[in-house]
């Protein structure tokens, strides 16, 4: 049957692996030799009650996702409205806004390390050039700014995508609706506020789902810029999971963090996925 290859691959690589990972998380397995003893929920209890770094990572993950989505969604909508004003060259601007998405996180990590470098980095250099040297910041090298600096990179990379979805969403608004409003004497501002933006619910929900999914799993960008530091100030679940598993060889504990990440993403994503399905049926 045609479905078989897909079913087998997904069954093994998603469901069998999830089950396997769950089982590992209930043992004290420490590495490649041996299999480890069954210890029940011990790893989870340790994680949730005794591990301060885990809690910091969880908090950082949520804060990062919050800032990222809280800025990307309005910025994407704003960009899309500007592009919708019917200016010449809007295709070029759309391309420019989308370009960051083409780079791997490895490349964007490289670029932004060079942007943020405190002494010779691009941002601080520019600030000094225009006489605003006092505004120069330590960026990712300071614990108080590391999460915010990383959020800016996420926003840089994904806001073009949000722009694109909203741009398509605005284009899909029936022309009669807009014309009717204009006949009634609505201003451009009213046109967007009262007619177009309220119709973007579906676009918002689908964008939030994808952005959430990425922000909960992104590893490369943080790993290659701050490595979770300074201290634990930008440690997030994905980097902490890697550190625990592959640097400290606490495989069972890493598996428990992996399962926690799965549950977290499902708890956060399922309401949105349900909303997407509802929107499709409506």
């Amino acid at each position: 049957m045609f479905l078989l290859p897909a079913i087998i691959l997904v069954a093994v690589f998603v469901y069998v692996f999830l089950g396997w990972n769950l089982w590992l998380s209930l043992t004290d397995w420490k590495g490649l030799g041996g299999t480890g003893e069954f210890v029940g929920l011990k790893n989870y209890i340790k994680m949730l009650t005794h591990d301060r770094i885990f809690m910091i990572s969880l908090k950082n993950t949520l804060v990062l996702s919050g800032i990222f989505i809280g800025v990307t969604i309005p910025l994407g909508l704003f960009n899309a409205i500007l592009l919708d004003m019917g200016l010449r060259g809007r295709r070029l601007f759309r391309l420019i806004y989308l370009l960051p998405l083409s780079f791997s996180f490895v490349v964007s990590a490289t670029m932004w390390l060079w942007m943020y470098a405190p002494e010779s980095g691009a941002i601080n250099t520019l600030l000094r050039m225009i006489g605003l040297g006092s505004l120069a910041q330590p960026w990712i090298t300071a614990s108080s700014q590391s999460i915010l600096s990383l959020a800016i990179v996420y926003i840089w990379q994904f806001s073009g995508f949000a722009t694109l979805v909203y741009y398509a969403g605005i284009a899909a608004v029936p022309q009669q609706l807009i014309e009717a409003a204009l006949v009634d004497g609505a201003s451009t501002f009213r046109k967007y506020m009262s007619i177009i933006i309220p119709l973007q619910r579906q676009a918002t929900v689908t964008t939030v789902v994808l952005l959430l999914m990425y922000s909960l799993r992104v590893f490369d960008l943080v790993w290659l810029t701050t490595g979770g530091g300074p201290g634990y100030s930008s440690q997030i679940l994905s980097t902490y999971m890697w550190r625990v598993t592959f640097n400290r060889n606490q495989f069972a504990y890493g598996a428990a963090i992996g399962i926690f990440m799965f549950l977290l993403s499902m708890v956060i994503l399922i309401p949105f996925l349900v909303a997407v399905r509802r929107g499709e049926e409506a």
Partner: protein
Amino acid sequence: MRALKRRKMTSFIKRLVRRKYYIYIILLGLSVFYLLPIYAMINTSFKTAPELAYGPIQLAKGFNLSAYGEAFQRIKQPYVNSAIMAVSATLLSSFIGAMAGYVLSRYRFRGSSIVFFLIIIGFYVAPQSILIPLVRFMGMLGIYNTYFALILTHTAYGVPITTLLFKHYFDAIPTALVESAQIDGCSVIGVFTKIMLPLALPGFAVVGIFQFTNIWNDYLYGLTLTQGVASQPVTVAVANLKGTTVAAWNVHMAGAFMSSIPVLVIYLFFLRLIVKGLLMGSVKE
């Protein structure tokens, strides 16, 4: 004279407002935000080592390619690995997704919507949740630290999204075509290969490009499943350029830029297909 000047000035401002110049100013300001890091990367990659001291903004004195030479030596084998890996996994996952998407779009059987749901859930599972079993599994198959491991991994985790994209794609093709072929005595396989596949070619372009960019840009699986230049993808090799020589930003940037070229070319020349793929994966229409 002065009054004239002022009148000229106000009419200039009026024109500015009417012609929406101020929107251009905002658009250009935002463009700086999006382009500055890219400029810093390309500009730095053309610098010589002594020039690095001037920082990333000051324009390079010329197109000095020495950083490219050094970076290329270190990433050329990984570059080939990435090409093999991304092309094979793209083809495999697109083809498997096309078959599954076709069946799920055309045939309603008991549990078909549950099967579809269970497949696309795979798209939302974070790699960290299956990473340890994945490493073990590749070890058991004896292909850990080869690019076969990466091909298999990217194919498997590509299937949910390719199935989703192809299902939506086939949903939009009218059933009348299929029915008339069936009346003419075409088998299921015949309908698929003779009618659906040719019709799906544009779909393959969209899905293929979408998959290729994702796979080419992956770092986590490459980092976890391979060691050493013989098997690692270019993303891992570029990340490793950083650690070895102290602050050789020009080499690092040259490597980063070279690794971005395939996807950048796709964005510049096939933007329409990229846009379609991104939208098909989100706003499903």
